[in-house]
């Protein structure tokens, strides 16, 4: 399903901004409303918008199915490892970074990647049933 030129150029223009906005929400989640989950959903929306306007086949060539799976699972593993790293400083998930926000910043970024990849992954799997293009 390929949409009209207007829709395609608009989504092409919006998507980079969405990714930037997602990065902002993830990185400033400890100071302002937002956080990993919200950032991740916006990240996934950037991909999903492109899929709906340009068609599944075309986007899949650039952003492969396996990448989504790989990013999702390695983000999950990193999340657990971040908690285990805290053991060395006293407790599981202890706040060992001296920077502002501590471990919350890496935590939010990893959760964002996890959620973004997982939502894209789910969308890819659902599209298989719809039999698009």
């Amino acid at each position, binding site marked *: 399903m390929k949409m009209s030129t207007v829709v395609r150029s608009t989504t092409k223009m919006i998507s980079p901004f969405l990714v930037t906005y997602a990065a902002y929400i993830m990185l400033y989640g400890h100071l302002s409303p937002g956080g990993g989950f919200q950032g991740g959903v916006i990240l996934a929306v950037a991909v999903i918008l492109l899929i709906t306007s340009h068609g599944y086949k075309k986007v899949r060539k650039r952003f492969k199915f*396996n990448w989504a*799976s*790989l990013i*999702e*699972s*390695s983000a*999950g*593993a990193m999340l*657990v*490892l971040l*908690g*285990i790293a*805290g*053991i060395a400083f*006293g*407790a*599981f*998930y*202890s*706040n060992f970074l001296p920077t502002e926000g501590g471990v919350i910043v890496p935590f939010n970024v990893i959760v964002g990647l996890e959620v973004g990849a997982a939502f894209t992954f789910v969308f890819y799997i659902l599209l298989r049933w719809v039999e698009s293009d």
Partner: protein
Amino acid sequence: MIPLMVAFPLLFGFIIVILDTLRAKKILIKASFILGAVLPAGIFLVGNGREIVGGWSRVAGIEVGIGEINAPFIAGELMLFTVVAFYSLSYFDFRDKKTAKALVLFLLMHAGLLGAFLARDFFNFYIYMEIASVSAFALVAFSEEPGSKKAAFKYLILSLLASYLFIFAIGVIYMETGYLNVELVAENALPSRELSTALGVAFASLLLKAGIFPLHGWLPDAHSKAPTPVSALLSGLVVKAPAYGMILLFSALPVGESLKTAAMMVAVASIFFGIVMALLQKDAKRLLAYHTVSQMGYVLLGIATFNFIGAAYYALAHSLFKGGLFLSVGSLGTRSRKLGEFGYRNAPLMAFSVLMLSLAIGGVSPFIGSYAKGLISSGLEGGLKWTVLAGTIGTLVSFTKLNYHLSRGETEDLRPSWKLSSLVLALTTLGAGLYLGAGLKPTDVIYIAAAVLTFFGLRALGVFEREVESEAKDVGRDVNVLAAVFVTFMLAVLLLQWP
């Protein structure tokens, strides 16, 4: 250190997904699966006591701990899961792409169950119980048997309905007391209408998730249609998480006399209903599934009499013998599961394990079942003690039937690891019974004799000829009926607490 028990299965679950996407060698996937299954046991042996994740304060943080009430639950989980993990490596044989996904779901269930048993606050308990249930739905649907998708759907809808009502009840508790931590709730809870409503709603939803009598409708299908190792985990462990939740609820909130009496009556009804339905089954796995309904009645009996230690040890005993029975009956009956069409006539080792496990579930000494039953009945008064005794004889009658049919049939090739896992669980029930100090009771001989006589009497009367409750055809209608039963039961529990 304690949170690592949940972290390891999760970590290795994610690692298996990475390895599977990269098409790594099978041996690596198998090794990570075994590591994820076994490593938490190491931490269980080292760690002890309680701690708050991340070193926060108790009011804001998440408290986890291993104490005398949840240690039996965790011990049972670790022992059964380790055996099932080795069993499932040979059961799912990497012939299709699904195997790695099944192993990941197993590890997720492992993490969920451990997290639920470690939890000391309601919200975390809920989250981890849900992780375990969601992987359970997916694993039931993995079976290739006809009807398994329907069973999984029924399980999914009813279990989620119960979950949403449970989280609503937790919300009410939080609104009333201001805490989610079990001990802080217990200190701050004053008897009020809101709290008794929350207690009733949460109790009814946990009863559904534990598959106890009036709300058991989804259980026989889901537990009998699932692949064998999954059945063992569902019956042995997944229904124990809600039971632990009931312990948390009852120890934190003011429980009125009427609710206690109602819980006791439900427990007794569940014990006998499960036995009667099991006697009338012709499908071996369905028979075992109905025994789960009956055995969960004993656990509820322990909880209703505030004998939490007894309930916990009964849960441990039930995970060991029911897991073992599902594994052995499932491996014997790969071709057909109809009673009389398969058996252990040509597999003496299997016969030995099944007999030992049957004696254990009947509560015969010196197996662990007898110790746990002793603990449960020590907290009971006159009349109820006799019901436990009657339940014992009923269970033994039903397992005489199972063994009678099994001893007449033959089985095909059994893999060595399948025989070994049944034997290990059978020996564990005996070893744990001896370790906990279940002495020999000569009266057990009388019970067994009575049970065998009753079995042949009933057979002569032709009771076993009839079969109740065949396959359901319309899932939608089934779900509607069961949801209506659930809502009615919940309203009854709420009205019971009317001051």
